[in-house]
Structure formats: structure tokens, C-alpha cells
């Protein structure tokens, strides 16, 4: 082999340049080619497909395993789908709970907000009629002084004779 090219080949770490060296020099230079030509010798000593003897084909074993693997695949797919469905529903539930919790926080604030903005005097309550089991009923409205609480009392109609 040409020593200068050999040295150059060892020094260069880049495979692309090494490949170029092989292509442009080592494969073409008669001296280098001869120095590296061991293919015919290797062909005699290397294990080749022709040298392998086997009475039985692997087909039967391969077929058995393919059939069993194919049986397993739909189960795996189902399992995967089931897992995705479970994950999806879990995310949905968590989202609903989160929304409920967050909106709950806001809802708690809303009465205070109403109390501040609407004056108690503006609250008017009027009940036109009330019935208990399709019979007219008496209605009593009790309202606190500060108008924070209103109690509506409904009872069966009694003729007080007034």
C-alpha cells in the first residue's frame, strides 16, 4: 500500500473523506488494491449460505409464532384503546370537577356582589296565589329589619271567620 495515503487515512477522522480516499485511491491504485485483495481467499473460508445444511425449514415454527402473535395483536390494540378511553374519561372528569370548583368560587362571591349593588328597598316580593294539594293556601311573608332574610310561610287555608 502507498504509505503516504495509508498515513493520511489513519490521520483523518472524517469517514466521508476516508471514503473518498478509498474510492479515489485505494480502489484504483494497483499496488494498494493488490495489498488489500483478500476477497477470493475469504470466499473459501467464510461461512456461506451454500455451506449451511439444514433438513428442516423454519417455516413451520415461523408460521406458528406468526399466528399466535396475530392473535395477540387485536388484544393489544383493544387494550390500548381501552387505556386511551380510560385516560380520556379521566381527563374529562377532572376537567368537569375543576370547572365546577372554579365556578363555585365565583358563585360564592356573587351574593355579596348583589348585596352591595342592589339596595334592600329595591327587593319586592309579591305572591299572587299559593295552593297546597290544589286547594288555596294562606301565605305569610316575614322579612327581617335589615332585609337580609325573608321567610315565606305557606299553610292550608283556614277560615278564621273574620
Amino acid at each position, binding site marked *: 500500500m502507498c504509505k503516504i495515503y495509508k498515513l493520511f487515512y489513519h490521520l483523518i477522522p472524517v469517514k466521508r473523506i476516508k471514503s473518498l480516499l478509498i474510492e479515489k485511491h*485505494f480502489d484504483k491504485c494497483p499496488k494498494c488494491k493488490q495489498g488489500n485483495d483478500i476477497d477470493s481467499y475469504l470466499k473459501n473460508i467464510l*461461512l456461506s449460505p451454500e455451506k449451511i445444511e439444514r433438513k428442516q425449514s423454519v417455516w413451520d415454527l415461523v408460521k406458528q409464532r*406468526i*399466528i399466535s402473535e396475530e392473535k395477540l395483536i387485536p388484544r393489544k390494540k383493544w387494550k390500548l384503546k381501552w387505556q386511551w378511553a380510560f385516560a380520556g374519561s379521566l381527563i374529562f372528569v377532572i376537567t368537569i370537577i375543576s370547572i365546577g370548583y372554579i365556578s363555585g368560587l365565583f358563585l360564592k362571591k356573587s351574593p355579596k356582589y348583589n348585596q352591595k349593588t342592589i339596595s334592600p328597598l329595591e327587593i319586592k316580593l309579591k305572591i299572587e296565589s299559593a295552593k297546597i294539594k290544589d286547594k288555596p293556601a294562606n301565605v305569610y311573608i316575614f322579612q327581617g329589619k335589615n332585609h337580609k332574610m325573608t321567610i315565606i310561610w305557606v299553610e292550608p287555608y283556614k277560615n278564621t271567620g273574620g
Partner: protein
Amino acid sequence: MQDKEIISRCLKGEIEAFEVLVKKYEKNVRCLAWNILGNREEAEDVTQETFIQAYLSLNRFDTKRSFKNWLYSIAYRRCIDRKRKEKVFFKYIKKFISGKKSGINIREKGIEYSERFAPLLSKLNEKERTAIILKINEGYSAKEIAEVLNCAESTARVHLFNARRKLKKLLEEENV
């Protein structure tokens, strides 16, 4: 019948059609695995696993590619996986039990195979070994070797060159 026709039949669910491909390429796959792993039993396992994996992922096979090269690339990856696992789990155990370095052993009954070449092959790394096997047995070009090794053509050329150079040196040392 061409490989592509057989593949399209397999994809339609005709498992029996795959038998043709198995019988056509099993020797080649076994030979590659045997040369890489240096063990007949493991090579048998890899051959089976290669065909099973090939069948189950046939829908991902690009019909523009050579089926044989694709099979070789699967077999190569399987062999590398085995080697890696073996290295991790059994390297020290083997050394401890046998007191010998784990090497390649391709000696088998009924096969006229040079005993000298086994230790020579073990001196090469898996990529160099695969590259030289494909070159010698199949007459593959650097481009085809690259397809199997899943690397650049230039890298495959370097692997092949290094393998030749190392083997030449080793053979010279042995005064062949």
C-alpha cells in the same frame, strides 16, 4: 413469482404466501446471523425472529426497496440486540465460569468450515463483520451494505475497507 407479488398477497392476509419468501431467504438470513453471532442456535432464533418481525411489519415495507436487503437489516439489528444483551449480562459471568474470553465459535459438525476464520471474524466489530460478509457472500456494493447497516454509503465503504485491512493484517500475522 416476484417478491412484491408475494408481499401484496401476504398483506391481503394470505399467510401461506409468506412460506415462499421464508424458504427463499432463510439460508441467507441464517448465514448472516451465524457469521455475526458465531453460534448456530442463536442464529436459528434470529432467523425465526427476523421472519416473524418481517411478516408483522410488512405493511411498513417500502416496495421500492429490495426485500432481501430489508430482511438483512432486520436480521442485523436482531443480532446487534442479542450481542448487546449478551455483553451486558453474560460478559463477566462467562469469564468467571469458563476463565476464557468470550469469542466466536462457528465450529459445527458436518460443515466444512475453516476453524481459522472464526477467531479472525471475532476481531472485527459487528459493522465491519457484517460489511465483509455481505461483500463476500452476496457481492454487495457499499450502497447496499449501507442500506442494511442503516448508515451512509461512505461509512459502509470505510467499514468494508477496515474489515479487509484488519483481516489482511491478521492473516499475515498468521503467515497465511
